[in-house]
């Protein structure tokens, strides 16, 4: 009896040890391959960006011209960069004030019960899966100053309408691009809101209705507060996306005319790859990163923190 127990305890110990070993092997075997590619192509380049940003370097030959924070000083003094940052911030503001409320309104509309709801949902979300290049080329055609769709449409509706060069006018181009950004991305926020609304128990709204709340009051005091978490998240995604926007703008205007639609990312591309100023371009990348990180930290601490408690 007792010897049997000892035996099984020994066997158990051996088995436990072998489990511990096999666990270690699994942990290593499962983590090392992804870690290699992740360190090689994500983390190291990030660290290198910081390092290169301290040099003047064209990407060829040895790193010799140490300039310290000189590149950063140049960036912050460059009017083109500052205005590019300004354009990013305009896109951020317009997205939050126009694109997201539109997406929310549509999600609420569909939730209220509309014939063909599933089809509408599919259509609204469709532009989000299309490529930025396809979207940009189609909209360049629509904005074409010689009788593109937009001018033709406005000409038909407004008497005496003079054709506008939507992408050629420095005063208009950013807003014309914002229309395309909205067309392309509202579907993502619409889908997030739709998913968020599904999680709200209908009893709460029914209770408010029984208490005599109007449709607006129900929305204002029950539905939207309950959707808070989703809204905060969608604002977060929208801001980061707007700060990093590149593809659509590059396809439609390459940042022009005369830098009127330049963003931080198009500025980075122009310096880093077109002029091969790797050091300066890296410094731009670091500034872009610091801005995104500062926003992310501030937002998570101040605004999203309540969602985790």
């Amino acid at each position, binding site marked *: 009896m007792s010897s049997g127990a000892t035996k099984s305890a020994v066997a158990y110990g051996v088995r436990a040890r072998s489990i511990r070993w096999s666990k270690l092997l699994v942990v290593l075997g499962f983590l090392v391959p992804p*870690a290699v590619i992740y360190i090689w192509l994500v983390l190291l380049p990030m660290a290198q960006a910081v390092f290169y940003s301290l040099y003047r370097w064209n990407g060829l030959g040895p790193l010799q011209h140490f300039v310290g924070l000189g590149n950063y000083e140049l960036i912050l003094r460059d009017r083109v960069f500052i205005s590019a940052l300004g354009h990013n911030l305009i896109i951020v503001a317009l997205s939050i004030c126009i694109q997201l409320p539109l997406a929310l309104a549509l999600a609420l509309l569909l939730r209220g019960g*509309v014939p063909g709801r599933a089809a509408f949902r*599919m259509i609204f979300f469709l532009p989000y899966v299309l490529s930025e290049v396809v979207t940009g080329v189609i909209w360049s055609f629509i904005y074409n100053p010689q009788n593109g769709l937009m001018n033709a449409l406005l000409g038909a509706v407004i008497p005496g309408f003079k054709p506008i060069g939507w992408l050629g006018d420095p005063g208009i181009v950013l807003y014309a691009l914002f229309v395309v950004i909205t067309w392309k991305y509202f579907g993502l926020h619409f889908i997030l809101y739709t998913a968020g609304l599904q999680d709200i128990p209908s009893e709460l709204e029914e209770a408010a209705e029984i208490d005599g709340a109007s449709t607006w009051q129900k929305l204002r005091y029950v539905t939207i507060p309950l959707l808070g978490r989703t809204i905060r998240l969608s604002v977060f995604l929208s801001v980061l996306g707007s700060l990093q926007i590149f593809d659509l703008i590059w396809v439609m205007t390459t940042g022009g005319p005369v830098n009127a639609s330049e963003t931080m990312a198009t500025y980075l591309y122009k310096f880093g790859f077109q002029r091969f100023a790797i050091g300066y371009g890296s410094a731009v990348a670091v500034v872009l990163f610091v801005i995104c990180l500062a926003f992310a930290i501030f937002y998570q601490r101040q605004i999203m923190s309540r969602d985790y408690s």
Partner: protein
Amino acid sequence: MASVSYSPPASRQALKFIRFGLCLFVALLVLVPLVTAALGGLKTNAELFANPFGLPSTPQWSNYRSVLSEPTFWQELRNSTIVMLLTAIGVLVLSSMPAFVFSRLQFPGRELLFGFFTLGLLFPIAVAILPLYITLRQFHLIDTLWAVVLPQVAFGLPSNIVILRGFFAAVPKELEEAAFIDGVGYVGFFLRILLPLVRPALAAVFVLTLVASWNNFFLPLLVLNSQQNYTLPLGIMQFQGQHSTDWAMVLAFVTLSLVPTIIFYLFAERHIVSGLTAGAVKG
């Protein structure tokens, strides 16, 4: 039935009608540009500018035919497909492994390692792109499809590890214990029990990665130089540059490159949506 309503049926009907009208209006705003592009490809350039939105008077299939007879179109389609599949397989394999370790195994330092892997969520690819370019050049990968695939996999890891970890953690512990009693071990449990159980999550990750790779423009723009290696988005840009005055032809090209995306979307919409909402909620 259960919901209590004080509004008379007539105004309810009217409200429903207004809602439908608004949705229809937005749906038109979404669809008109796409339909215009598809129809534009069927017109001559003269007609395109005389009548940009109407139906073509006589459909000119020659635009579509000449795009389809261009070897570059097929080459670009092929490149995009190869890059997309390799990226999605790479992301699926390399993010499900750490997701398993971080969701099912207990060991000291686990949270620290998990934090290390999710650090990448903070870095948009634009920030690392210049040193990445230099790295790829050192390994002689520039102007090969690997220069697109490998960074796409690497940058896809953090978010997908987070998504999959959430799904893996939801699998009941009892199944794991049962697996150990049957003596299948960790790897057997992972491959034969866990992965089949979370198929919907794997499908979501796979499909989202496919779409992102298919549409990617920034990275291919930087690392692919010769036309034979171009992916479709680059091909469209190049084609537009070459035929800048021939809008009908450009629209035919764009429409043809849209067809696979839209067919795919019709089949995979459910997975795309579930992947996005899961990622958003958990990330």
